[in-house]
Every structure is written in C-alpha cells, then in structure tokens.
C-alpha cells in the first residue's frame, strides 16, 4: 500500500493550494482527483477573486471586506474565518502572480479590480470572465514547477507531490478516532486503491448535482460532505444553499448554466416583461440606505461611487434570486420563465466582448443570442452550498476527527447564510493554504503513524462492489428522481410540508439506492460511478432537508414561506448534522460571539437588525 504524509482529496483551488503548502513544508503529498488534473469545478468560476488590495479604490481595506462578508452572510458567518479571509486574501492573490498568473491590469499596471454584488468597493481581481480558469491553471502550473524541482533533485517528478487522476475516494480510513488513510477506486481499471496517511484534507467542493437546475459540474456530488459524515465528523448549517440569480433558462438543455455576476458588476440591469428595473422594489430593510432608490442615482454610481449609492442589481445573491423568483411568479417573467438581463443597452459591443468574452461566446453558441444586441433570459440556479464540514477556523481541522481537514466549499462557517460573489476563490486560497499547513504540521508532529485496518478495507471494497449485484434499479433513474425532489421540495423557497415530503422521498430513495444495479464491467463505467456518487448525494441532501425543516426563519440561502422573517434568536444558532445508525441527526449549537473590536466596525443601528438587545447589552458591558 502506498504511504504519504498528507492526502488531499480534490484538485480544485482549495485542494491544490493545500497540496502546494504541504509539499512546501517538506512533506510527501498525494492529490486524489475524480477527473483529469485541471478540470475541477473551480475552472467554472467567472467573476473574480475578492481581495481588499485597494488598487481601484484606495478606500478599501480588510475591515471593509470583513464587514461586507458578514453582511452578505447575515452575520451567521464564523467571524474568525471571515476575519482571516479578509486579512489574508490579498497575499494569496499576489502570490499567484509570482507563480505566473496574469490578471487584468489597471492603467498604472497593478491588478485591476471589479465591482460585484455586496462588495462596497471594486474588489475582484479578475481575468475577463474566466478567472477560475486562470486560478486553476496557475495552481496546476505551480504543482508542475514543484514537480520539476523534485525531478532535478531526485530524478523523479513525483517524489514528493503526486496527482492521482481519475481516482475516486469512497472512504476515509481510521484507526480509533484518528485518520489512517483513504480507500477508493481507479476509474480506468476499476481496481481499488488505498493510501495510508495520517492526515487527509477534504477539498471536494459542493453538492449541486443533487438539484435539477444547477450551475455545478459533474463532480459536485457532495463527496467530501459524505466522507466527513461517514468518518464521524459533523456538518454545519447545511440548510444554506445559494441559488445564483442568473443562470441560463433557454434552451432547456442548458438551463442552469451560469451567467456571471460580472454582467451586473459591469453595468448590466435586470428587467421584467414590463420593462421595469424591478430590483428597486426589492431592497430589504437591512440594506436600506446602502442602495440607490432611483435609476438616475444608480446609473451615476458607476462614474461617481463616492457620492451615489450602488444599484440594487448589486445586492447580495440571495436577495436578487428571490426577487427574480417573485417577479416570475407574479406573471412578469419572460416566455421561458426568466427575466431579462441586459447589458446590450449599457455598454458598447466591443466593450462587452472585451469584458465578458465567455458570456458572449456561451450565448452565441448555445442559445443563438447576441448579448451585444439583445438581453439575456436568466433565472435562479443552484450554485453553492454555504454549509459544510465543521472546522476550526484557524487550522481547518475537524474538531471531531484527528487528522481530518476541510477547505473550500466543502467546509462550513466562512460564508454564514449566504456567500458573496468573489469570496469563493479567495476562500479556496486562504483556507486551502491553512489546511495544507496544519495538516502538514499535524503529520510531521506524530510520533506513531496510524495503521490501516484490513477489516475496514474489506468493508469498503464490499460496499463499492455492491452495485454489481443483479436485480436492482438503474442508478440514472434514481439520480433524476433525487434531482427533481430537491429542486421541487427543498429549492429556493421552502415550506415545512414540502420538506417533510422530501425527507420521505429521500428515505425511499436511500432504500432503493442500496439495491441499484449497474451494467457492464468495472473499467471506466459511468453507471457504476454514479451508483457510488448516489450515496453521497443522498446523505448531503438529507442534511439540507433536515436542517432546513428545523430552522424556522428566513435568512440568506434559506427562505421559508411559512417563516418569512429573519429571527435574531436564530442567528445565535448553528445547526450541526452528524450520522448515526438511524441516519442524520441534527443538533443546535451556539454560534460563538463576535470579538468586540470586529463588532465595533459596524454602527449600532445596523447591529440591532441582526443581534438581540441582550447580546448587544452584553457586548456593551464588556
């Protein structure tokens, strides 16, 4: 059996950044990726990386970024993660330049920054609308450069950092309460593999493939969420799922594909079928005062942001998605059930093509729409899960399982109830690096290595082979039913009755999934792969529905029609999911109080919208 110091599961932004860090600490690192190297979901990120470098507006600082992040998450964020994120993001971006990244520039040659929803200043470092590609390629090329270094020294590119492409982890192995390695299968051969390692970093991304309409790629099946649960770790705040306001809606086969928020950041506006810029009607109480009330003021803001307020199209994503949903429901949608997103009347054609090349290309080739001449039709699409593995904010370590770390979308806490656009790529880098660093320190500090137990390997192999038993159902049918269930019953607007119904259906699906049957043999078999993914999607979906049913309020990515208000008492509560013999259990856990100097960054009137009078009184008494 292969043995490494640190195994990183996932090769997107967080996984690669973790692997680079652990390798630079001098350890031997394995990266396991479900797809080919360089294809991870990070590649689809479009708008940019949020980092308060202040290159475009010098008023920006980490404090302002922290404030925006907490507001965006409706103060449910773990304050310490939001603080680390805001303070470290600029270093993580600058570091990418030393590895060869080429961001768009300001006129004085620095990294350009663009406006985005919920960010007070232009803050997103970007490369047109393909920033995720730049990020993944830069990290991939950094990995290669470290391998080249190792080749020079040892004659072996993979001496200290090896990428296992198209390998899938199905179990984290343990010795007692600590991590001992990973088990999984090799796609090409269908054979099993296992790696002994004292530290495992989960960096597997999100869960969007459990929903029918999603911007997420094939990989997003909640693998890390499930691996963590199965290993005894807990998941935090899984009820919060972000529906990005602007996905494509037509033609049906591309429904859900992302339309970047940069369209709005760069001047695009949303209109209903009556031609009205409806977002002015949807500025919620907590954000009154920060957003323009007239089209004239909103339009002046692009040229003079210091004396005008921002257009309401740039509200956080949860607000915009709900507004679009309401407009369509009220009968003011387009023919295909979306609203219009128009940049053609706002910018010259050549400017649109320069700033939004992928969007231009995507609409032209997939929908026969020329976005320089006509509006796009858009509607909400499942995009991101704020919930995830509960981790220590500084070390990214699971408090429940020694040696288990999580970073990026699979980790919870950082974004609270709603993530701001641009905060994902920076999250990957900041906490990817921290996870790699602390996993390396943990592995290096051990005096005895955990031993992999044969019984666990046998059980994992039996579990993975179960779908080859005959007589069960087709996994594709189950997947479609799961996606329909989550879309219809645990979607953007939720009700208790529907979530209960979803839980009933999920219970049935879980029983049926235990008996799926795949055709063919083990080599590169997509049906088998899906059968294994189903376990993970069902676990993550059940967490979303259970926690969603329990949280009786509306906040960020969790909107209850039957509990429409935001409840200050609920802000103090995190919902934590664990797995036991009976299935998913959800418990309430106190959200730690925010440090005083960070609270002092806000006006008291604003805090009073989110915190109870008792909390604020306690704070004053300190």
């Amino acid at each position: 059996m292969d043995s490494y110091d640190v195994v990183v599961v996932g090769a997107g932004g967080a996984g690669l950044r973790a692997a680079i860090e652990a390798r630079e600490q001098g350890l031997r690192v394995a990266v396991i990726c479900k797809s080919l190297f360089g294809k991870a979901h990070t590649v689809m990120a479009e708008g940019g990386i949020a980092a308060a470098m202040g290159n475009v507006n010098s008023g920006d600082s980490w404090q302002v970024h922290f404030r925006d992040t907490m507001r965006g998450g409706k103060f449910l964020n773990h304050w310490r993660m939001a603080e680390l994120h805001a303070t470290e993001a600029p270093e993580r971006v600058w570091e990418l330049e030393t590895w060869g990244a080429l961001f768009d520039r300001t006129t004085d040659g620095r990294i350009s920054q663009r406006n985005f929803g919920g960010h007070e200043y232009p803050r997103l470092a970007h490369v047109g609308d393909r920033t995720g590609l730049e990020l993944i390629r830069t990290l991939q090329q950094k990995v290669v450069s470290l391998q080249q270094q190792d080749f020079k020294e040892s004659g072996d590119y993979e001496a200290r950092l090896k990428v296992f492409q198209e390998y899938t982890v199905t179990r984290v192995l343990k010795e007692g309460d600590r991590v001992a390695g990973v088990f999984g299968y090799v796609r090409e051969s269908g054979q099993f593999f296992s790696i002994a390692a004292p530290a495992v970093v989960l960096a597997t991304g999100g869960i969007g493939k459990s929903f029918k309409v999603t911007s997420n790629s094939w990989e997003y099946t909640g693998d890390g969420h499930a691996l963590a649960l199965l290993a005894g770790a807990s998941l935090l705040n899984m009820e919060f799922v972000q529906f990005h306001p602007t996905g494509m809606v037509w033609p049906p086969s591309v429904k859900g594909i992302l339309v970047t928020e940069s369209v709005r950041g760069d001047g695009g506006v949303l209109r209903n079928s009556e031609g009205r810029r409806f977002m002015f009607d949807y500025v919620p109480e907590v954000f009154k005062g920060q957003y323009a009330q007239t089209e004239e003021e909103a339009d002046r803001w692009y040229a003079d942001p210091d004396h005008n307020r921002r257009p309401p199209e740039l509200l956080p994503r949860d607000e915009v998605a709900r507004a679009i949903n309401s407009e369509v429901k009220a009968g003011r949608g387009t023919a295909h059930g979306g609203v219009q997103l128009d940049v053609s009347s706002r910018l010259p054609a050549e400017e649109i093509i320069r700033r939004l090349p992928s969007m231009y290309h995507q609409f032209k080739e997939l929908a026969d729409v020329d976005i320089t001449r006509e509006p796009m039709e858009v509607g909400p699409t499942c995009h991101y899960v704020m919930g995830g593995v509960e981790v220590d904010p500084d070390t990214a370590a699971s408090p429940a399982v020694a040696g288990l770390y999580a970073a990026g979308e699979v980790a919870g806490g950082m974004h609270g109830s709603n993530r701001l656009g641009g905060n994902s790529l920076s999250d990957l880098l900041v906490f990817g690096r921290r996870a790699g660093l602390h996993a390396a320190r943990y592995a290096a500090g051990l005096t005895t290595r955990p031993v992999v137990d044969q019984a666990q390997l046998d059980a994992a192999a039996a579990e993975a082979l179960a779908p080859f038993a005959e007589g069960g159902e087709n996994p594709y049918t189950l997947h479609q039913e799961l996606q329909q269930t989550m879309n219809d019953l645990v979607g953007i607007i939720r009700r208790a009755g529907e979530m209960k119904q979803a839980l009933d259906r999920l219970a049935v699906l879980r029983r049926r999934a235990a008996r799926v049957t795949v055709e063919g043999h083990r080599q590169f078999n997509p049906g088998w792969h899906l059968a294994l993914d189903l376990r993970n999607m069902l676990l993550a979906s059940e967490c979303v529905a259970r926690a969603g049913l329990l949280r009786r309020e509306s906040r960020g990515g969790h909107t209850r029609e039957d509990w429409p208000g935001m409840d200050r008492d609920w802000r103090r509560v995190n919902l934590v999911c664990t797995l036991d013999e009976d299935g998913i259990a959800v418990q309430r856990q106190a959200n730690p109080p925010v440090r005083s100097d960070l609270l002092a960054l806000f006006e008291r009137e604003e805090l009073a919208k989110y915190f109870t009078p008792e909390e604020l009184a306690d704070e004053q008494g300190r």
Partner: protein
Amino acid sequence: MSKDVEFRIWRGEGGQGGFANYRVEVNEGEVVLDLVHRLQATQAPDLAVRWNCKAGKCGSCSAEINGRPRLLCMTRMSTLPAGQPVVLTPLRAFPSIRDLVTDVSFNYAKAREVPSFVPPAELKPGEYRMRQEDVNRSQEFRKCIECFLCQDTCHAVRDHEENKAAFAGPRFLMRVAELDMHPLDAAAEAGLDRRADAQDVHGLGYCNITKCCTEVCPEHIRITDNALIPLKERVADRKYDPLVWLGSKIGLRPKS
C-alpha cells in the same frame, strides 16, 4: 419538436471494438453531450465518456464528431447535417481506453517538460507592475482550456506516432510562447533560453503552420498566427541576429 436521430458510436476497449448504432430522441437546443447522456440513462448505461462542466469551460468532453475534433458540450445538434447519422469516435491521436475515452497522459508529460514561469528575483509579491497591452498576448494563450483538440488534430502527431517523443504539440508550444511573451518572466536571468528550447527540446520545427490547430480551437485562440509563427520568428531572430550571436559568444546576456 423532438425527433429521432441515428447515432453511430465507437465502442470498445484498448483499440479493439466497433460501431454501435442507436436511435435517440433529440429536442430543441440540445448539444451532442445531451444525447450521450440520454443514451447512458436509457440504452447504454456503461457508455464511457469524459465530461465535467457541460459549459465549454473545462475541456473534458473532447471527441470526434463526424471525424472532426470537437467538444461534445459545445456542438449543437442543429449544426450537424440533417438526415445523416451522427458518428462519434474517440480522439484519434491518443490511445483508446474505453468507448469515447482516451489516454491523454502524453499531454501531461509534455506539460512537465516546459520549464515554469521564473519569478523576477527583485520583485516581491504585490510589486508586479505590467501594462494591459503587454499581457494581452499571453492572456490570449491562457484562455486555453486544455481540451487537447489541437494536439489531436495536429498532423505532426496524428499521422506520425514516432514524432511524439520530440514534439510537444501546439498546446505546449503555445505555452512556451506564453512564457516567452510574459513581461516579467526571468527565464533568461536563470540561464534558460526558451526560444532555443522551443526549437531544440519541444520540436517547433515540426510545425509547418497549416493552422489545423487554430481551426479546431473551441476558445478561438489564434494559435498559429499569434503563438507559433511569432515563436518561430523569435527563434529565427535569435539564431541569425549577428549581435545576439556575438553576445552569446562573448558572454553578454541577450536582452529579449
């Protein structure tokens, strides 16, 4: 709105196999990958194909449609000739694994042979200053999604297996060009000569600028005009510029 279309899909392993025929329903707006998915869900559950994003951003679903290298997710059914079967085959230049999946490790091996960006020693993180005009060229090449369609179509590889050892292919020659045109790359200071390497290590000479790579690029990168030809010119300048020649003889560092 929907109609049935005939698909002929190469199925097999390790190069052994043959065509299987399917009839499948096609709806408005669909791309070829939608039909492959429908076949998996209904008629061929173990049909092997790579795909990730289904949005033209990751470059996973490369295959040959009616003999032409393309992305399955960006090829709309409406653009293919009506009334004819749609023929799907794996990328021809790479070894077959199963069905539409090929072994593309050649490309990852070539990627490792290109020396990485060399950061300028005198600049700390955050101190990099570059003008947009100066990064435009390399940025165009960094749009590459590594679908390897250019590698597949380039006749220097496609028809000449024996060239693979000495030829990096358009994608990785473009990578050399990208680094050579990076305004702050300090390769020369580190004793690296990217232009000499392009010719001597990566086989730039095998390219005879037939532009096949540019034609199949789903990102519309002008690989030949903007990367390969300028790189050839730079190699030629370096070789024949008498001052550079003199400089290299008397130990002066050539200024790019």
